[in-house]
């Protein structure tokens, strides 16, 4: 075996090995509406996309959240479009996870859901959320307030 030593061994970045971040992102996707399998697949695709980039995205967590969410929504839409009619009769695919608050969060409009989850599940700041979602800081704040108000109203009796 001819072994040629690599001229410049590269260090192994650990950015992608943060298990806690993966869990947060996974839960955030489930909160948005993905099934466990859908969340896992979408996240995996997002990580792969990140790895293919020449440079690690600056705000990795927000970037992964947005990309994974886009992957999941695209896949979800296609599934709904191409689902056979027989499967549509009374068998709408619903996430198996349950929880009163989770169920209400999933009823929020998508933008409110995204902002609320980015802020409170991923723990991103207003500025980070705004950057990830490509909206203004003020919009994040207002949208988050709308989401909280809706949840307060709907869950008022239970809180």
């Amino acid at each position: 075996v001819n072994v040629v030593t690599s001229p410049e061994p590269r260090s192994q970045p650990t950015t992608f090995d943060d298990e806690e971040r993966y869990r947060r992102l996974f839960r955030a996707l489930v909160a948005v509406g993905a099934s466990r399998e859908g969340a896992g697949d979408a996240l995996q695709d997002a990580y792969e996309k990140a790895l293919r980039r020449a440079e690690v995205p600056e705000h990795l967590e927000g970037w992964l959240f947005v990309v994974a969410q886009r992957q999941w929504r695209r896949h979800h839409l296609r599934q709904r479009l191409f689902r056979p009619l027989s499967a549509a009769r009374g068998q709408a695919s619903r996430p198996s996870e349950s929880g009163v608050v989770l169920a209400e969060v999933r009823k929020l409009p998508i933008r409110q859901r995204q902002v609320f989850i980015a802020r409170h599940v991923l723990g991103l700041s207003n500025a980070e959320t705004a950057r990830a979602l490509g909206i203004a800081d003020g919009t994040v704040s207002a949208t988050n307030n709308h989401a909280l108000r809706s949840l307060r109203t709907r869950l008022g009796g239970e809180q």
Partner: protein
Amino acid sequence: MNRQSDVDQRIVDRLNAELSLIAIPARVASRTAPKSGLRSAAFLTAALAVLVLMIGGFRTLREIPAPNDSPATQSQRTGPIARCSDGRPQAEIDFAGRMLWEPTANEISCVFNATVSGPGASRVYRLADGRFLGMYERVESLPVKPTVAPNATGSADVNGATWSWSILPGRGQTLLLQGSLAGAPVIDLSIELTDQAADLRLLRTIATSLHQVVVPSPKATLPASVGTPTLAAATEGSRRGPVSTAEIVARLNAAGVGSRISSPAPSRLLLFNATDEDLVTVDESAIKGFVVYRYPSVAAAASAFRLDAVQDPGRGTVSYVAKPYFVGIGDALVVFATNDEALARRVIAALVP
């Protein structure tokens, strides 16, 4: 105001508590994920299904000669490699069919993923040390693609043949061992690099353990009588087990007759005592309908293949807009109609190879 923010906080806390109860599946080691679309979205899998079947189905049907003289290594397994518990579903792995060559080294723990695209097939195996091994097999020569310059290259001996290896740059470096077996496809083995010499030894061991997969070829027979002049029929006499519509479509695609399974019809017309039917769309305008009738058993399908229902006027007559052809395969009866005899021959040859 304070009360309001307390309520908000409780909502957030409760949401996080509910989310924390969700079991998170084992994470795929993304840094080692190969380029072959590890855990790709189900839609993509479905979109590739036709290609997968083209190769998978073709491979299962073609006759592959007896294993060559690959020397046995001291660490070899027998039988197929099991699926990883956190890998892609068994159905997907089965769907991809088997590769022409499979490694038998004990260093491989399980199959994580299996995909086929065009003339190439790839597998992702998990190794005993937890890393992923990518294996790519291509029947034709490798396509020329723009790629980054390797950090290092060299050659290695595998069973007396010279294989080349290279270390590809990236966030995690990849060791790639590439070679061709006598009369066999080009094979790529890749692994995330940790220790160059040890990893190269490992890949050589795995390359040495590759053995050819032997799949028996079914023997097809044509019936002595083909019925009335208006009918044409063929049967795959050796088929003893059930056959899926997907496999039928795969056979067509493998023969260059583009086809896919159609959405179920709003109402079904089950003929010939069938219990179910699948509609197939064939990309040939000369084919005026293509239906796969399903039966509970091979015997029931064979009974229907006698076409009593068609030939007995007392039991009704079926009219076709073109000349109908009947092909019995396993527990299915394939019926298609066309006036293009050459095309019909192609389709029958594809279905009953």
